[in-house]
């Protein structure tokens, strides 16, 4: 935890006091979070910041910050990661990953290099594969059911600080 505090200090020395004993209420704006070396190349950094921030706007307090890194660390258990991954990929925050969320995900992953037909095909395939309850979108259970088996999930959904 000390390391996380130190990290935050490096990010914004003028904002983050070194002495936390009196619990000041410090919030880092999203711009600073998004420019962290661990996150700046990640296409989902905005979503990550939004998911872990209190107000969903990307501005994080120390707790949020620590939360984020603890979930993304290699010690965090699979279920926890799956839960947060679901939240990250749910762009419209409606507790379901619907087709538009999938489209946004694919476009972020490929930097818009796929044609709309290809994107469409991919999204439909994903829904076909993972949607167990047949409602045309992925609920948390669908998502968890699918992601738990993925061999790479733990190793890719992981940030080291």
């Amino acid at each position, binding site marked *: 935890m000390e390391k996380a505090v130190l990290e935050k200090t490096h990010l914004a020395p003028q904002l983050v006091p070194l002495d936390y004993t009196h619990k000041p209420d410090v919030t880092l704006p999203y711009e600073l979070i998004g420019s962290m070396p661990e996150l700046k190349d990640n296409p989902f950094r905005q979503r990550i910041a939004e998911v872990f921030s209190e107000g969903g706007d990307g501005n994080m307090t120390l707790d949020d910050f620590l939360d984020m890194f603890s979930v993304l*660390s290699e010690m965090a258990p699979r279920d926890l990661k799956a839960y947060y991954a679901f939240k990250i990929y749910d762009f419209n925050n409606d507790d379901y990953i619907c087709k538009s969320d*999938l489209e946004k995900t694919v476009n972020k992953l490929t930097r818009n290099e796929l044609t709309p037909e290809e994107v469409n095909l991919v999204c439909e395939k994903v829904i076909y*594969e993972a949607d*167990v309850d047949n409602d045309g979108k992925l609920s948390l259970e669908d998502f968890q059911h*699918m992601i738990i088996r993925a*061999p790479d999930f733990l190793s890719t959904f992981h940030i080291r600080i």
Partner: protein
Amino acid sequence: RRKNYQGKNSGGKKAGEDRSRQRGRKAPTKDQKESENKKKKGKEVENKQKEDRKNSTSASSNSSDEESPSEEELAMLMEQVEQKKKLISTMRNKPWRMVKKLSVLREAQAFVEKFEGALGKGKGKKLYAYKMMMAKKWVKFKRDFDNFKTQCIPWEMKIKEVESHFGSSVASYFIFLRWMYGVNLVLFGLIFGLVIIPEVLMGMPYGSMPRKTVPRAEQATAMDFSVLWDFEGYIKYSALFYGYYNNQRTIGWLKYRLPMAYFMVGVSVFGYSLMVVIRSMARNANESTADGDDDNFIFSWKMFTSWDYLIGNPETADNKFASITTSFKESIVDEQESNKDENIHLRRFLRVLANVLIICCLCGSGYLIYFVVKRSQTFSKMQNVGWYERNEVEIVMSLLGMFCPPLFETIAALENYHPRIGLKWQLGRIFALFLGNLYTFLLALMDDVNEKLAEEDVVKNITHWTLLSHHNSSMGNSSSATPPPLDPADVPRGPCWETTVGIEFVRLTVSDILVTYITILVGDFVRACFVRFVNYCWCWDLEAGFPSYAEFDISGNVLGLVFNQGMIWMGSFYAPGLVGINVLRLLTSMYFQCWAVMSSNVPHERVFKASKSNNFYMGLLLLILFLSLLPVAYTIMSLPPSFDCGPFSGKKRMYEVIQETIELDFPLFVAKIFSYVANPGLIIPAILLMGEEKRKMMGYYTNPMMQDLEDLFTPSTKNESHPKQAEDKKREPPHGNSPVGTQGKAAALDGSPMPGGRGAAFIPPPHVLVTQPLTLGVHAPYPGQYRPRGHPLGPVPGRGRGQPRYPHAPR
């Protein structure tokens, strides 16, 4: 939700944070933070203690020692201790509150400490502790060694970069190239260490014997570059070629049996290659049957687990984006292929038609080659042969090599195969075409050899008489008993057919190398430059229309590599230095082609994964290995070695060196045993048995190949109303590899930033991919090692013209 969550929780510090950082709760109080720190420290100390305890049981003996418990009690105690130990080690994963964990931990550790001492019996304790420590050290050592070995694999980053831009099919060629480099390196080590070095160090030096000296007549020009380029002159009389080696039975103070070594190394080159190819096939066959059941979530996993959150470097990120895009495209191709639903009869008819046409082409070209070779034999007897007649064979071979493969591709468009399978057919056909090439080359060579053998008899007589006359003349001048020896440069030489054969192969290899490199340079690089720069002042769009950028011609390159290796195998017995040349060639090829691909090629329009089993490449290689073994075996068994050059000179047949060694070097009874064993009645069954073994191993790999063939004729049973059960989905069976695996590998290696070096000036802009209307030739990759899959035989509106780089005619 977090409160109900029951999953594993590991890591004291972070777990503590999880517990307290629940949603809705604000910042921790000062007390909580301090207690967390304490817990963290405490946990660290306890962990350390736990480890120390495991290592030194002697420190933990205590009062219960003198009780001497009974056997059952001991066993129960042991069980309890083991239980507690297990509890200690899994403490992190338990979803308990911190306080509870700590108390349980302390209790367990106290228990272990108290009773572990009672279990060991004096010396046994120490031994046990020692064994545990060694076991741990061994595991750690093995892990470190594995890491080291992985780091030693050369060019991993280069290949990863190529893979992320061009797909696994193109990368499979480079992986194959790297594997060939490894094999050649081993062969080179064998030959260099066991044949060349002993002769150079311990044999007679240059100039001491006729066979090692440039003849007087040639000495004037022996150093000229043009002569050296033709591998005549000083190079011909060096350790690179067969003729240099002396037939002395033992050389040097080590009594090294050089002729025997030469023969055995020649045989073991083939043996090792055979073993390595078959082992690779068996291993690939096993791997390919391993995964195949996890293809239920291909797209989902691609979407949600392909991005590696560890990436913190823009260039790595670029590569990752490219690789993800490519991977999606590959899967899309596979998906589209499996969705195709067509008239089975029409398809079959078209395929049969295509095969008939192609067989006609092959027969036609075979006859043409035969006809041309026959004509050249008559030409060689005529006096006034023009330039065309002299080179007719080569011209015809080159033309065939240039025009037939694209013709095959065009006809193959009728067949409408899955890209990967189409690739295999294409490769097989071009292979058949170039067997014709091989046939003419060998025929020409055999003619040459027979000529030389006839000539040899004549020269033998001449030499004999020359020496005699020299003796007589020198005897006449002085009355001393020993005449001055004839200078080695003046001794008349036999034609030494083995060296000639070696020189032919070396020349072929060198010209093949040159042609390949020049083709790459001109066909890819200059073309790319032209398209890129002249495009500004050209009437039509060069990038979108003709000629545009080249795609990497995987099939041509792989075939080139396979045939080249066949040449090496054939020639290495007669030119020990050939393998060294090949090693250099492969090394430079790797760098050169990686650069060329990254700077001048565009990815295939329809990127595809090569097939899961690498065995198609290996199968071709195996075939070529047998084909190249035959001529060498024939010459060893039935042609007499030259009388004045090489390690077998003076013998009637080359294999007699074995008999000689057994008779002279081994005790008598060994010779007797061998004479019994060399009974054909025993040898034939032995060979058949070995053949059975090989067939058994091949059985491992034929199954995936059979599956591939089956795929051709079973229609896809996927229909539009998808049942929602994953099990009912029928996808193409053994080729459904888990692409996540590839991603996983990519992810594992993407942690480190990739080196730059991309020749950025010449990377074709990405929009080219979209505007390319034509697929530039069907260049299916060989099913490479990285589960290459699929192939680019798509809806081709026009004909592509890739840059075929096929093995050309000899000379």
